[in-house]
């Protein structure tokens, strides 16, 4: 068998075999090309493949997909004698969706999420721009390393520390005191909640924006510069449209994380007014009303799916990738 035909057979069998010939030419002619050792149907899972692929599939199907489906089932159950009991009633849905307080909390949580996404995106962009276009490679890598560090610290402890810093007679108000200002109320209100959300999402948003800006075609910027397009105009008419997908993705992640966060609105926002996560925990803790909590969780999931879908359409739709 010639080397060429062996290569052709391999290429047909293996999806990644484009470079096989280059490696094999040197060696194949020393041995007899042993076709038996090339796995037949290498691109399709065999027993070898199933050994690697199946455990993760089974685990996630049993312990991720099934619980989520069961959560939807639970919304139709009834609470009898403080115990969730199998049934098929729409009481939980009717009760919650007709309650004014639920919609108050729902829209407030949604607005908080939008606010966090907007503030985080706006705060992050100048920094991502600086790191992507004005900083040296070494500085950029140092910044990326620093931005990854917070992921290894406890979000709970960081939130707690913000409370120490921002509280009525905390460090920031003491500093203001020296200037003859304050004290300002910075916790147990929306400001505190927002500081918490930013603690959670800001490093991630900067990293995602930075990666999307890194893929902007430098020739476009060069061209804009040669055409005497000013720096700010270049940012708005070239860079932002080019990096749109990544920027929208970063904002979407900020929304998802803030929308579902329990820690910031509880510890820095003071739980009052509540968000959907606080409502779920309250409903579960007081009275163990799992069906009702499940309705809230399903409503949250549907909302997040809708937001992700809308974000994808917005990112890939009108305006395109190129300016």
């Amino acid at each position, binding site marked *: 068998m010639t080397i060429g035909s062996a290569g052709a057979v391999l290429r047909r069998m293996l999806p990644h075999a484009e*470079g096989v010939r280059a490696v094999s030419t040197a060696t194949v002619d020393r041995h007899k090309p042993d076709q038996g050792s090339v796995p037949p149907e290498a691109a399709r899972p065999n027993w070898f493949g199933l050994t690697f692929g199946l455990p993760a599939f089974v685990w996630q*199907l049993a312990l991720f997909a099934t619980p989520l489906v069961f959560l939807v089932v639970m919304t139709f159950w009834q609470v009898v004698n403080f115990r969730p009991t199998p049934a098929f009633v729409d009481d939980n849905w009717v009760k919650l969706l007709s309650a004014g307080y639920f919609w108050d909390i729902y829209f407030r949580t949604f607005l908080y999420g939008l606010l966090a996404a907007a503030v985080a995106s706006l705060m992050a962009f100048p920094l991502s721009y600086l790191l992507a276009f004005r900083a040296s490679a070494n500085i950029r890598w140092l910044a990326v390393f620093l931005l990854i560090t917070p992921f290894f610290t406890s*979000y709970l402890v960081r939130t707690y520390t913000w409370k120490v810093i921002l509280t009525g007679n905390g*460090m920031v108000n003491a500093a203001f005191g020296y200037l003859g200002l304050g004290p300002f109320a910075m916790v147990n209100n929306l400001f505190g909640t927002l500081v918490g959300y930013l603690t959670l999402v800001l490093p991630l948003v900067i990293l995602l924006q930075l990666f999307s800006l890194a893929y902007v075609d430098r020739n476009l910027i060069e061209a804009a510069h040669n055409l005497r397009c000013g720096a700010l105009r270049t940012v708005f008419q070239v860079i932002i449209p080019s990096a749109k997908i990544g920027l929208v993705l970063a904002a979407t992640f900020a929304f998802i994380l803030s*929308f579902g966060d329990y820690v910031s609105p509880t510890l820095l926002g003071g739980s009052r007014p509540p968000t959907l996560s606080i409502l779920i925990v309250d409903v579960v803790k007081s009275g163990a009303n799992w069906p009702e909590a499940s309705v809230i969780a399903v409503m949250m999931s549907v909302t997040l799916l809708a937001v992700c879908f809308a974000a994808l359409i917005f990112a890939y739709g009108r305006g395109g990738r190129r300016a």
Partner: protein
Amino acid sequence: MSGRRLFTLLLWCYAGAVFAFIFAPIVVSFIVSFNSDRFPTLPLGEFSTQWYEAIADDPTLWPALRRTIIVGAVVAVIATLLGFGAAYTDYRFRFFGKNFYLALALLPPTIPVVILGLAMLVFLSQIGLFGQLHSVILSHVVLCMPFAMALVRLRLSQMDPSMEAAAWNLGASEWRTMVEIILPFTLPAILSALFITMAVSFDEFAIAFFVSGFAETLPVRILAMFQGQVSPRINAIGSIVFTVTMALVILAQVALLARNPARTRLAVAKAAAGESTDHG
């Protein structure tokens, strides 16, 4: 040109402010943990290790820490094994329903932990697995596996696709290729996956809060302390955990740098040579 310079300078000042915001809680947490005041403010009190002594004497913390370490270690191993398998499957095979497979493997971190926690609570209590340490382990693997998968998959995409095919071509079996080519090449990613999944599990409290029952893990215990009282002991715990985590991460980085990817190419040659002597 000087306008442009001024603009860049302003941007750098702004960058400093944003980094100060991100690192303020981390730095202040360290300072507060060594500060004598119970309600820290400016000016700071005296240097003191009293909060560290207080946590050493706290009888509820040590069992919680022990549980967290057990959960973290077991979760890291299982999640990395499963994640490696899923990443290799995505890298190597094409099959019907692959998009569903990938969605199942990668989606968990995008679901808010409160929802995931509630779903696990409702489901695990139905099948009688609620309120024990293994409830936390089962749930955390779901959350952590995607991180392991992403890390290994990234590493695999850096591999020369012809390397594996070359090994088969030279007569190595699929298993032998796995052991001598894929595993050595992805070892750095496997190590980082172990550390990252452990770190994620260490810090996760919402799911643990729902499913752990009386088997509280450390973050759940911290949340309970939080609601009970204000105390710099929380900062002391946080500082210890942060120091240990960063030490592990830096060790992982050092281990990574010590391993040269070129060795994998050597392994191809060695596998080939070994195989040819087997046949000869």
